C-alpha cells in the first residue's frame, strides 16, 4: 500500500515534470548542451590563441654590448626571438608589451670574461606574462650556453676534465601509469562536475514540487486527499532524486561525447584538450559506474536538503533566494577538493561534499582505498538519512505548510 501510494505520487509528478518546459530545460537540455558548447568554445579559443602565439615572435632589445660584438651577434641568431634596434624607452616598451624582454650587457663584458672578472647580465621582463617569460627563457638559455662554453675553455686551459664540475647526475622519472597522471589533472574536475550537476538538476523540481505547489494553490488540494504526508513527501522526493541523477548522467554522457569529438578534431594540435579527451575515453564504464554509486547518497542528501529548504518558501522567488547560499555551501568544498595537495585524511573523509569530491578524484585514477570508500559512503548515507528525516518532519509541520 505504501509503495503503491508513493508510486502514484511519483508517476503524477513525473508526468507533470515532463510537461514543464523549465524543468526540461534545466534537467535535460542544459546538461546536454553545456558541454558541447563549452568544449567547442574552448577548442575554438585554443586554436585561435595557439595560432596567435605561434605567429608572434617576441621582440627583445639588447641594452649596451657595443664592446661585446660576439655576444650580441650570438643573441641575434637565437631562434624564436627577434632582436629589434634599441631605443631609450625600452622599459616602458616592456610594460606596454611592445617588446617582451630586454637584456643588459655590462660595459666591457667580453673583456671582463676574458680577464676572469665576474659581471652580471640582467634580463628585464614583465613578470607572469607568458610571452615575456618565453622570450626571457630563450635569452637565458643562450647566456647559460655561453657561460658553459667559457667554463669549458677555462678548464681545458688548465687541463682539467669538465666532469670535475659534475660528479653525478640527478634525474626524475615517472612511474605512475599515464591514466593516473592525467587523472590527477582532470579527476577533480569530473567529481566536481558530477556533484555540482546533481545539485543543480534537483534544484528546479524541488522548488516546483514544494514552493510551486503552495504558489499555485494545489497544496491544500493534495493535503485533503487520503494519502499520508509521509508517502506524499517520499513520492516527491523520489522525483527530485530522479531529476538530480538524470542531470548528472546526461552531463557525463554529453561530456564524453563532446570531448571525444573534440579529440577527433584536435588530435594533431596536441593541446591539453586533446589529452582531456583521451583521458575521458580511457575512463571506462567501471569508473563511471563507481562514481555514480558513490554519488547516489550525496544526491539523496541534496534532494532532501533542497526540498526542505524550498518547502519553507511561499513562492519560487523566495525559494530561489534560500537556495543560493546552499549552492555556495556545495561549490566551495567541491572546488577545495580540486586544489593541488588536498588529499583524503580520516577527518576530511567526514566532511560532506568535500569527501565525495576527493574520493571521485581517487576513483577516476582507479585508486580504490576501501577504508575511505566505506567511511565516506557510510557518513554520506547518515547525512542523507538525516536530511530526508528532516524533510519528512517539515512536511508534517503546519507552520511550514501554511506559512503566511
Amino acid at each position, binding site marked *: 500500500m505504501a509503495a503503491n501510494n508513493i508510486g502514484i505520487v511519483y508517476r*503524477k509528478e513525473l508526468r507533470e515534470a515532463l510537461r514543464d518546459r523549465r524543468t526540461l530545460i534545466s534537467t535535460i537540455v542544459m546538461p546536454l548542451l553545456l558541454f558541447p558548447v563549452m568544449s567547442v568554445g574552448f577548442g575554438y579559443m585554443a586554436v585561435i590563441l595557439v595560432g596567435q602565439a605561434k605567429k608572434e615572435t617576441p621582440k627583445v632589445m639588447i641594452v649596451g654590448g657595443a664592446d661585446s660584438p660576439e655576444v650580441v651577434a650570438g643573441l641575434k641568431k637565437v631562434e624564436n626571438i627577434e632582436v629589434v634596434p634599441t631605443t631609450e624607452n625600452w622599459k616602458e616598451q616592456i610594460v606596454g608589451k611592445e617588446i617582451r624582454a630586454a637584456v643588459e650587457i655590462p660595459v666591457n663584458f667580453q673583456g671582463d670574461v676574458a680577464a676572469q672578472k665576474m659581471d652580471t647580465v640582467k634580463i628585464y621582463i614583465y613578470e607572469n606574462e607568458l610571452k615575456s617569460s618565453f622570450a626571457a627563457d630563450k635569452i637565458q638559455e643562450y647566456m647559460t650556453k655561453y657561460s658553459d662554453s667559457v667554463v669549458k675553455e677555462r678548464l681545458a686551459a688548465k687541463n682539467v676534465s669538465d666532469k670535475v664540475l659534475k660528479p653525478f647526475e640527478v634525474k626524475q622519472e615517472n612511474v605512475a601509469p599515464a591514466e593516473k597522471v592525467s587523472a590527477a589533472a582532470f579527476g577533480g574536475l569530473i567529481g566536481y562536475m558530477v556533484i555540482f550537476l546533481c545539485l543543480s538538476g534537483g534544484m528546479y523540481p524541488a522548488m516546483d514540487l514544494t514552493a510551486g505547489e503552495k504558489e499555485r*494553490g*494545489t497544496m491544500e488540494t493534495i493535503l485533503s*486527499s*487520503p*494519502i499520508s504526508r509521509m508517502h506524499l513527501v517520499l513520492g516527491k522526493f523520489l522525483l527530485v532524486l530522479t531529476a538530480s541523477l538524470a542531470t548528472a548522467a546526461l552531463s557525463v554522457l554529453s561530456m564524453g561525447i563532446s570531448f571525444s569529438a573534440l579529440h577527433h578534431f584536435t588530435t594533431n594540435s596536441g593541446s591539453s584538450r586533446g589529452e582531456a579527451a583521451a583521458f575521458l575515453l580511457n575512463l571506462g564504464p567501471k569508473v563511471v559506474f563507481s562514481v555514480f554509486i558513490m554519488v547516489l547518497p550525496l544526491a539523496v542528501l541534496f534532494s532532501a536538503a533542497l526540498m526542505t529548504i524550498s518547502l519553507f518558501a511561499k513562492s519560487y522567488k523566495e525559494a530561489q533566494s534560500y537556495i543560493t547560499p546552499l549552492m555556495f555551501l556545495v561549490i566551495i568544498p567541491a572546488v577545495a577538493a580540486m586544489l593541488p595537495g588536498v588529499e583524503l585524511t580520516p577527518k576530511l573523509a567526514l566532511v560532506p561534499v568535500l569527501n565525495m569530491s576527493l574520493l571521485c578524484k581517487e576513483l577516476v585514477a582507479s585508486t580504490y582505498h576501501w577504508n575511505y570508500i566505506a567511511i565516506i559512503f557510510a557518513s554520506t548515507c547518515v547525512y542523507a538519512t538525516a536530511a530526508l528525516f528532516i524533510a519528512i518532519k517539515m512536511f508534517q509541520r503546519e507552520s511550514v505548510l501554511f506559512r503566511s
Partner: protein
Amino acid sequence: MIEARSLSKSFHDKKRGVIRAVDNVTFSAQPGKIYGLLGANGAGKTTTLRMLATILEPTDGTAIVCGHDVVEAPEKVRACVGFLSTATALYPRLTAQEMVEYFGRLNGLDEPTLKKRIDEIFTRLDMNGFRDRRCDKLSTGMKQKTSIARTLVHDPPVMIFDEPTLGLDIMTARTITAFIRECRDLGKTVIFSTHIMSEVEKLCDTIGIIQSGKLLTEGTLAELRAKHGEQDLEEIFVKVVAPHYVAQGEN
C-alpha cells in the same frame, strides 16, 4: 455525520502571542442536511473546516467524521470526505481527466471502478468536451466542474465546502450551489462556510454563527429568528456578532 467536540486551535504569533483561532467549538451536522457556518473574515471558519478535513490538527478537543476521529485516524477521515474551497486549485499541467484520476487513485480506487466513476461523473457534469484539455487552459467554470469531479470521485459521504463561491461570477457560483443541493439530496452530510447571507438563507438547514473562533449561536433559520427577535438574517448576524466584534477590536 460530523460531530465537533470542543474543537480548538491556537496559533503562536510573534507579535500577538497565542491566538485562539477556534475556541471550544461544538456542533453536529446530519446526513441529508446542510450545515452553514456563517462568519466574517478571520472568524475561524476556514480553520474549523480544515480541522474537520484533517488538513490541520486540533490543539484541543476533537471531531468525529463518519465514525472516525480526526486526531486518531486522519487518513480514514480524509477518505470519506470531499473537500472543496476556492484555495484548492488544480494541477495546471494535468488534463481534467488526469486530475480526477490522480485523486481517484489516491483514494484507493481500482482502475475499472475508477474508469466507471469518471465516465459517470464527466457525463453528469457535462465535462466530456474538455476532459483531455490541460487544467491551465480551462475556463473558470470548467475548472470548478473539474474541482467538483475531483471531490466526488471517491463518492464521499461527507462534503466540506470552504467559501466555495468566493470570487466566482454568478453563473459559476450557481453551478456550485446547485451541486451543494444535489449532495444533500443524495443523502450526504454537507457543511459549508460563507459570509454571504443569501446563500445561507437559500441553502442551509442549520446555521451556526461564528466570531473570534467561538460558535455564538446555532439553529434553523426559524429558530434563530425566534431566539433573536429579528426577521432578517443580516440583522440577526449583526446582533449576535457585534458585542464580540468590538471586543476583538479592543484587543
